[in-house]
């Protein structure tokens, strides 16, 4: 794409003031605590992720960052400003892709972008010009005049992303950008987000897909039950919290528990899941050979690299997507 739809955030050279600074951040709904004292900083140009299962508090955190939900405790600063007193100023500089699409299905794709631009006080002509460019960027120029209603989920998501860029935001917030999409639609979206990242746009996204986190995030936090369980780059998290390889053993249905003993002492540790036994080792093939030698008869066995899924399992004892 020739035209750059977003600003590059260029801080003063040498000094890196974080775009987002959160300390002891809390969100309560009545007596229930959805976000329970989390700390994180996001630097300009970074792609930062919140990885966590349903109900972890990802959206609650995103809405606080987006200045549409007042914080219940702790400190939050965006661009050095306090959302409680400068919500409007901050929102001017944000692009938001909410978890649930909020496009106006009565309007055309183009009209959706233009009216959204009007909310940022762009002139009609400028909003129209940017809408054209952004629809090209998300590869939907041919759908500009069609209504939103009949578009596929993936296309609607791309329209929402185009819409979120209309004000040339300094920071783009994406809440589960690809949940519910088919693999092809997800790859198209990842490609577009990757381009934005290359253009220097700061991305903050939530996901419960570990492959999405690995693809897009420079750095991420693993979130569970309102708390941060670990923080780092995908690679570092895997190095820290998992072994190099994983041996997956599948025994006949219901027989995984009784075969668990084969995994004991084999590697650094193991996890028993309802449908398989995971053994964390440095050399998967060698571990498999020893298990077979010990007389185990798994239905199938697989050696793979460790992923963020394993990190999450190790930290919380649960899988990301049930």
């Amino acid at each position: 794409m020739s035209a750059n739809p977003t600003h590059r955030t260029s801080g003063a050279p040498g000094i890196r003031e974080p775009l987002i600074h959160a300390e002891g951040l809390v969100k309560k709904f009545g007596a229930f605590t959805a976000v329970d004292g989390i700390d994180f900083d996001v630097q300009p140009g970074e792609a930062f992720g919140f990885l966590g299962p349903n109900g972890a508090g990802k959206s609650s955190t995103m809405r606080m960052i987006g200045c549409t939900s007042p914080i219940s405790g702790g400190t939050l600063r965006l661009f050095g400003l306090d959302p409680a007193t400068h919500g409007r100023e901050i929102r001017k500089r944000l692009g938001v892709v909410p978890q649930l699409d909020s496009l106006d299905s009565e309007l055309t794709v183009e009209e959706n972008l233009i009216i959204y631009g009007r909310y940022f006080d762009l002139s009609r002509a400028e909003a129209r010009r940017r809408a054209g460019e952004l629809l090209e960027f998300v590869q939907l120029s041919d759908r500009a005049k069609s209504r939103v209603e009949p578009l596929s989920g993936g296309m609607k998501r791309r329209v929402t992303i185009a819409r979120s860029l209309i004000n040339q935001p300094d920071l783009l917030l994406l809440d589960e950008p690809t949940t519910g999409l088919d693999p092809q639609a997800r790859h198209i979206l990842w490609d577009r987000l990757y381009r934005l990242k290359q253009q220097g746009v700061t991305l903050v996204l939530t996901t419960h897909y570990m492959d999405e986190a690995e693809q897009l995030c420079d750095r991420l936090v693993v979130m569970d039950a309102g708390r941060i369980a670990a923080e780092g780059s995908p690679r570092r998290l895997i190095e820290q919290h998992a072994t190099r390889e994983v041996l997956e053993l599948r025994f006949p249905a219901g027989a995984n528990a009784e075969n668990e003993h084969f995994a004991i002492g084999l590697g650094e540790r193991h996890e028993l899941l309802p449908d398989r036994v995971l053994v964390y080792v440095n050399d998967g093939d060698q571990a498999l050979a020893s298990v077979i030698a010990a007389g185990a008869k798994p239905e199938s066995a697989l050696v793979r690299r460790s992923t963020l899924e394993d990190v999450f399992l190790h930290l919380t004892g649960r899988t990301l997507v049930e």
Partner: protein
Amino acid sequence: MSTPASLRVFEWKLLVYRRVWRSNIVTSFLQPMLYLLAMGLGVGSLINKNPASSQTLGNLPYVAFVAPGLLATTAMMVASIESMWPVIDALMWGRQYEAMSATPIEATDIVASHAMWILFRSGIAAITVAAAMALFPDVRSWGLIAAVPAAMLSGLAFGMPLAAWSVTRTREMSFPVIQRFIITPLFLFGGAFFPLSQLPLVIRWFGYTTPLWHGVELCRAWATGSSLGALAALAHIAYLLLWAAVGMFLMRRLAQRRLFA
């Protein structure tokens, strides 16, 4: 030169309305026509034969009595419908308000734009009714022009409190109940079809407290050119404005709480 934020939200409503305005105006013309024909000519021909009734109606032919009332009731109907389903739609189904809340648009702008929208829609409805009325010789008058803003104000006095209620809802269940047990009784007992003086004292006083009666009185006085003192007119206007203002105040607080929770 930037446009006020509330106007830019109003622009969104217009953009959607652009697709439906034609069918919309046809309906809002046909409905009062039917009422005028049935009530004014049908029922009216009976009433006009009775001298005592004519006196109660201020010596107006029945159609001339009923027609201005229709201006106010139509505005009320339109304003109340626009303040129920479309509000919950923008909150929960279409999520347009949620989309706005992520931009520099504030709850205040949404409320102000809703007020503009109510004035716009009840204005269109009132003009259409006035156009229908102009087809009846007994009703036709220049005063109709003055009655249109009075009808718009009645719409606002109704729409804003109702919108404040809608902004707190998570389901539409209460809306048909409101229609059946508040709007319809008001339509019938708000002084549009017969003078409230015909009713038992308790019901009469209930009628006086509702905004509709004040709107009907204003519309009727101005459309028929009957005598209404300046003070009485001001009192009616002030009362309608009070309802509108309280509604706007509540809607702002409740929308803020709902959208920025």
